[in-house]
Each structure stands twice: as C-alpha cells, then as structure tokens.
C-alpha cells in the first residue's frame, strides 16, 4: 500500500494498481516496482538512495536502477503527483462564462415533469427583451462564452429572434426546446446562428411521449428534429430524456429513435421533484425506485459504443466520470460558479436544478452581473463545491472522491435535503468506478 499520510489513494490488488492523486482527479496505473519507488520517494528518499536499494535487493546495475527511478519520477512530476509539497486543492473561482436564461413561462405543452411549471405562477410571463439584451451585452463584456436559452418554450418569447441574433456570434447559443413549434424558418435561423439545439423527447413513440407531454406532441417534435436536420444542424442536435416511471421501459428505444433521426447524443436526465412534477409525482415518480434507474444506467453504460448515437448518463449519475471535460481547467466538472441561472422574474440562482429560496442569490433587476458573480452567496457556493468531498464523511475516505467530487449538489439536495451529503446513487457510482478500474487493470495485466 502507498503511504497514505499524503492522502494518496490506491485501488487494486494485483500486479498493477491504480494510484489516485490525493486532491485532484488525476490517476495513473503502476506496477509493484513503480509503487515501491513512489512509496520510497514519498518517505523522503532521494532517487540515488532508491536506486541503491533496488540494486541491493535485486542485484541489478546501479545505472539501470537509477534510470528506472528517474523514469518513474519524471512521470510522477509530469502527472503532478510529485513533489508532494506542491499538492493543493484547486478551488472554483467565480468566473462569468455563461448565462442560463429562463426567457418565458409561455409553453404550448403541459408536461407532467416540468420543473419550470406551476412554481412560476404569479410571476411575469417573459423576461423582457431589453433586460435580456443588456445581460447578453454585459456577459460578452465580461468575457462570457455561452448562453443557454430555455423557458417554458423559448420559441414563444415575443422577441426570441432578436435575442438569438444579439447573442451570436460571440456567445455560443444552447437552445432548449420541446421541438413542437419548430418550422423551416426557425430551423434555418437557428442553424444560421450556430446554435446547439436540445430537443426534449420522453418516449420513442406517441404512446409514451404523448402520455407525458400531451397528445400530438411526439409527431410534431419528430418533424421538428427532421427540419433541424434538413437545416444542417446535424452534430449540433441532441435529445434529452428524463428518466421517469412511464418512460423507463422505453428509454433504450429512444436510443434507437435517435439513431434513425441521425442525432448523435441522447442525454438521460434524472427526474426532479420540482415544479409541475410535485403535483404529478404520483403519476411519474411514485414507485420509481433507485434500482429502476440503476438498471437503466447499467444498460446505457454497458451499451458501449455500438451505433452512431452516444448515450450520456453522467448528469443522472452526477459526476460519474473518469476524466474531467477538457474545458474544466480547474479540475471541477460542475459548472456552478461559472454560470448564472436567471428565472423569468429576474431571480438569480447558481444552478437550474437549485432554484429554491435557499439558493436565491439576488435579482438582475437589483444587481449587475459582475456583482452577482462576485457576491458572497456565489463565493459560498463555490467554496462548498470545492470542499464537499473533503467535508462529507463518507467522501473523505472514498478513493473516487476527486472524480465524482461528491456528486451533483442539486441531486444531493433533491435526495437528502442538503448539499452536504451525497445523492442516492453514491453506492452504485462506487460500484461503477470499481468495474471501470477493474477493466483498466485487467487490460494492463493482459498487456
């Protein structure tokens, strides 16, 4: 075992072991000799002392031993595993990279699971376009890179065209739609402005989809996706499906549907008891056990790379990943701290799945974007995001803590009522990590 006084973590029991960095998501695989060299270096031995010990133990030439020690040392330094004195926890610093705008309460559908439904009653119908354009200008001035346009159904915002036109080309546009109002003009307009479009599909056929989203919505959404394809969006389209009781059996079929439509990515999202879903919970969530979701995740994960469409379940599994996304330059996968979520009434939250009074950070009618990004609530939530894995007891001793980073805060809030705990998928996620690393170790042992 690696001396754990520095917090290095080790997994495996065979010839090769996974060594995990104590404070970052970095990991590597080394054999027993490599582990022994790392152990000796961590205990303060010089490379020459380690090489001398190897020569004494194995009777090999010192030159061979020192060359091997330096090979290990160089890799450890390049991988930032050494020197141990340089080990630091990278912290999330607030940075205005993106906005997530709930542009309107207007929607032509009444979906059973909508987190933005019901709870918005009594608030204004739209975020005024003057306010939206001002926010986009400010985001650009602060160096922001992207804006997510959501609703309700964003196509129903009276000024949506001018908002889209104003966002680009400086800001990448992510457009979340139910797809049913898409026509050739809209599809061309979105394509011309480089938008990435996410269409919500909750069933592979009208019987499933329409039971959740309303009669006729399936055929219209499919036609909408076809028009987006005809407009040339192709790789810029993805489907989003929520895992709920009615659709659970049908989720694999959604992958088949996406392949037939030429859509490269399907995101499977966890059901959250918010908005309309609270009222409809008996219908959509009751009886949906953790085991049901896990069975589906098993399918999605073990499906591998068959087919042209990729399933993504890392949102539902809140941080189940073996490498951080490339754009994650501070080694924290969650976007909290780099985005602000603006509700239709101007209220600001750190995350679209944490739009509760406890996490309301202010209002765009009372504070500027810069002030909101550098506010005390933002600083507090960034600190929580950084430190949860070290504070939550079961995470502090878990080898996977720097990969999942205690999972999604919003899902923990949903399942446990606090962000200072993990979510209900923690045990399952640990099992998946073990399976994944067992597979990597098996490949190394074979090789």
């Amino acid at each position, binding site marked *: 075992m690696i001396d754990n006084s520095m917090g290095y973590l080790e997994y495996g029991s065979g010839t090769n072991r996974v060594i995990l960095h104590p404070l970052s998501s970095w990991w590597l*695989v080394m054999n027993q000799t*490599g582990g022994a060299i790392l152990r000796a270096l961590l205990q303060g031995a010089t490379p020459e002392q380690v090489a001398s010990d190897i020569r004494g133990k194995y009777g090999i030439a010192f030159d061979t031993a020192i060359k091997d020690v330096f090979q290990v040392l160089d890799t450890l330094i390049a991988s930032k595993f050494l020197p141990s004195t340089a080990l630091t926890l990278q912290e999330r610093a607030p940075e205005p990279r993106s906005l997530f705008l709930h542009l309107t309460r207007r929607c032509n559908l009444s979906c059973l699971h909508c987190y933005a*439904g019901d709870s918005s009653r009594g608030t204004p119908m739209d975020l005024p376009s003057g306010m939206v354009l001002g926010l986009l200008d400010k985001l650009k001035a602060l160096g922001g890179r992207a804006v997510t346009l959501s609703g309700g159904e964003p196509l129903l915002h009276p000024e949506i065209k001018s908002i889209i036109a104003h966002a680009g080309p400086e800001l990448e546009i992510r457009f979340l739609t139910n797809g049913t109002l898409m026509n050739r003009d809209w599809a061309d307009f979105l394509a011309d402005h480089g938008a990435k479009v996410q269409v919500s599909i909750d069933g592979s056929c009208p019987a499933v989809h329409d039971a959740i989203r309303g009669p006729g919505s399936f055929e219209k959404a499919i036609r909408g996706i076809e028009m987006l394809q005809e407009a040339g969006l192709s790789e810029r389209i993805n489907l989003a499906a929520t895992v709920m009781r009615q659709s659970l059996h049908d989720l694999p079929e959604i992958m088949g549907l996406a392949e037939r439509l030429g859509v490269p990515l399907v995101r499977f*999202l966890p059901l959250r008891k918010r908005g309309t879903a609270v009222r409809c919970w008996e219908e959509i969530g009751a009886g949906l056990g953790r085991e049901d979701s896990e069975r589906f995740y098993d399918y999605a*994960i073990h499906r591998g790379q068959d087919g042209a469409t990729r*399933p993504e379940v890392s949102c539902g599994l809140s941080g189940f990943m073996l490498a951080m996304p490339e754009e994650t330059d501070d080694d924290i996968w969650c976007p909290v701290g780099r985005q602000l979520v603006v509700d239709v009434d101007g209220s600001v939250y750190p995350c679209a799945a944490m739009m509760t009074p406890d996490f309301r950070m202010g209002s765009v009618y009372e504070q500027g974007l810069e002030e909101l990004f550098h506010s005390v609530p933002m600083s507090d939530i960034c600190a929580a995001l950084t430190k949860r894995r070290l504070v939550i007891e079961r995470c502090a001793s878990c080898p996977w803590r720097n990969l999942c980073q205690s999972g999604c805060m919003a899902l923990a809030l949903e399942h446990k009522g606090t962000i200072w705990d993990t979510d209900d998928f923690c045990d399952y996620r640990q099992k998946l990590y073990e399976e994944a690393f067992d597979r990597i170790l098996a490949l*190394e042992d074979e090789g």
Partner: protein
Amino acid sequence: MNKDKAKQDKGITETGDSAVPEYIPPKIKTYTSDEILEQIGPAMACSPTPCPTAP
C-alpha cells in the same frame, strides 16, 4: 517444500545458495480522455458543461 513454494509465489529465483528476487522494471501509465473513451466507453468519460438541464 512449502518454503520452495513460498519462494516461487514471491517470484524469487535461486542461484546456488543465494536467493535474488526477479527484477521487474517499473511500469507507469497515464491515460488521456480519448484512451479512456476507447477502452471504457463513452458513458464513462465526461459530460459537456454546462449541466444539460431541460425544462
């Protein structure tokens, strides 16, 4: 005999009376995201930001 078996299990080879364990050079390997994708599959690699939430 048990002693010989134990030595074999530890990878110890004997030359005359002296026992010197076999030296296996260190192996250390890091993985890129692409290599993880290739070996483990797409669902296990990463998730694009921002968090893909849909209403």
